[in-house]
């Protein structure tokens, strides 16, 4: 660093303590083992930031009005090749984000990383997951083409089956009894302001708590050698079965320990994070250019030949709508709500010190069944809609 540059840096450091902040941020010790799995978290963050950036630029053109939303996006499609790529990146990074955040969650579930004292990292993560789903659903309303319009009709109609206050909730979202101008204005506001305004502070809390407790939540970090609180290295056991380490509880806890094999966050973990994130961004870019974001014909409430097909991430719920008989329609609300509540409760249900997934059948088996249920619903739904 040049002398003048260093002087500027010193000037800022004196006023902001930026040097120690950077040092703390970049040179934190992170575990070597499992590091590639941990790239899922940073990839989730990168994809969310991609959403934020492309979303900001899309608002420079998009008009949230029933008479002009479709026209503004059609203009983009017809007359603005770069704008179409921006919209393509927005759509495809959303699709891939749903996959990656799902994998991130499965990884955390599998490795038992949500255990004391990391319960709130998991809880904020579930919150972010639900908000990402909310962003995907509200975003699907906005183009106001046939797909968007009928998605808006069906999705806003589902809460109408809430006992007692159902039609009130539906009207609150729609701003009227039927889907119309206020529905689009409200959903646009929810999509660009309300949900992000909740999501970004939650992401901040998620990361701050992660840094507080260290990136040592996983089972894999403690198979073998670890370092006890007193700084004593405990070697791996010679026996077949790896020694059961004193899993890290609260840092103040007697059982606290850190994995022996650690390295600096920068550049070792950032290298892995960068490789995975860049690869995903390349995939998003290629899909955005080659396939792009579709725009069907403009919304036509009077259609009698259009078959509404839901977004792929909505397929499990759509299949439930087909399977659940008329007397039990509220089940379509109860199952996803119950699922989210169970996810939030997970760290408070599975409280034992055991993190090995094979020693935790009480959560692994129901978890596997839940995933299987969603996968089967998705397959049934795709089979029905695409005649597979």
């Amino acid at each position, binding site marked *: 660093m040049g002398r003048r540059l260093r002087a500027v840096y010193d000037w800022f450091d004196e006023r902001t303590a930026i040097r120690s902040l950077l040092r703390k941020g970049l040179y934190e010790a992170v575990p070597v083992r499992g590091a590639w799995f941990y790239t899922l978290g940073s990839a989730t963050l990168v994809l969310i930031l991609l959403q934020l950036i492309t979303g900001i630029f899309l608002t420079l053109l998009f008009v949230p009005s029933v*008479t002009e939303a479709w026209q503004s996006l059609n203009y983009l499609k017809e007359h603005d090749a770069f704008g179409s790529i921006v919209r393509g990146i927005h759509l495809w990074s959303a699709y891939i984000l749903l996959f990656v955040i799902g994998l991130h969650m499965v990884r955390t579930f599998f490795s038992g990383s949500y255990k004391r004292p990391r319960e709130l990292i998991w809880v904020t993560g579930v919150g972010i997951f639900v908000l990402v789903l909310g962003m995907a659903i509200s975003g699907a309303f906005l183009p106001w083409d046939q797909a968007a319009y009928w998605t808006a009709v*069906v999705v806003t109609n589902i809460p109408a089956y809430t006992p007692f206050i159902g039609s009130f909730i539906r*009207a609150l979202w729609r701003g*009227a009894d039927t889907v*119309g101008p206020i529905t689009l204005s409200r959903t646009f506001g929810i999509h660009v302001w309300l949900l992000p305004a909740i999501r970004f502070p939650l992401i901040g809390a998620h990361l701050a708590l992660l840094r507080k407790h260290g990136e040592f939540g996983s089972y894999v970090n403690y198979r073998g050698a670890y370092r006890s609180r007193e700084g004593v290295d405990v070697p791996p056991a010679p026996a077949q079965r790896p020694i059961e380490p004193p899993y890290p509880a609260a840092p103040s806890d007697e059982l606290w320990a850190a994995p022996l094999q650690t390295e600096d966050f920068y550049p070792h973990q950032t290298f892995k994070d960068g490789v995975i994130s860049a690869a995903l961004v390349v995939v998003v870019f290629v899909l955005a250019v080659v396939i792009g974001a579709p725009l069907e014909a403009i919304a036509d409430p009077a259609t*009698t030949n259009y078959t509404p097909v839901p977004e792929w991430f909505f397929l499990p719920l759509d299949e439930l*709508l087909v399977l659940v008989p008329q007397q039990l329609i509220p089940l379509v609300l109860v199952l996803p709500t119950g699922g989210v509540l169970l996810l939030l409760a997970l760290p408070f249900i599975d409280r034992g010190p055991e993190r090995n997934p094979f020693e935790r059948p009480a959560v692994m088996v129901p978890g596997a069944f839940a995933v299987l249920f969603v996968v089967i619903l998705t397959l049934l739904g795709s089979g029905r809609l695409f005649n597979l």
Partner: protein
Amino acid sequence: MAHRDPRRLSRRQFGVLGTQVSGAVVAVLLGIPIVGFLLSPLFRQQQAVWRKVGDISGVPDGEPTKFEVAFPQDAWTTAENNLAVYVVKNGDNTKVFSNVCTHMQCPVRWDGSLHQFLCPCHGGLYDINGANVGGPPPKPLPQYVNRIEGTTLFVENRFTEEI
């Protein structure tokens, strides 16, 4: 320490109370208009309008026939909302069905080969009288309030029964 009347607020308690009251004032003054703003569309009465559907002299008996009718959209939008209705004539008796499915409000269509109304979303079925006869729909197809002048059919933007 000087004697203090326990019934009187200390300086500290006064500070706590004042902070809480200030927060409550801001919350109430912001909350009332915001909640009212959110709810106000729900309490607006829908304007009742009659609209011409068309000449129904050519509609065959016992064969649901699709017409389109434009109703005003809610709120400020001047463009009207085109909706589909199915006119079913049975001698002197004319029914005007909405094509909005009672399950998830998808666009129902008449399938001549099935001789039933079919919902494309989740497989709901209705017979020619609008009765829900298969799939998940919990109620029959709604019917518009209508009147006939000569051979011209008019409908009002409300249903014969609440849905």
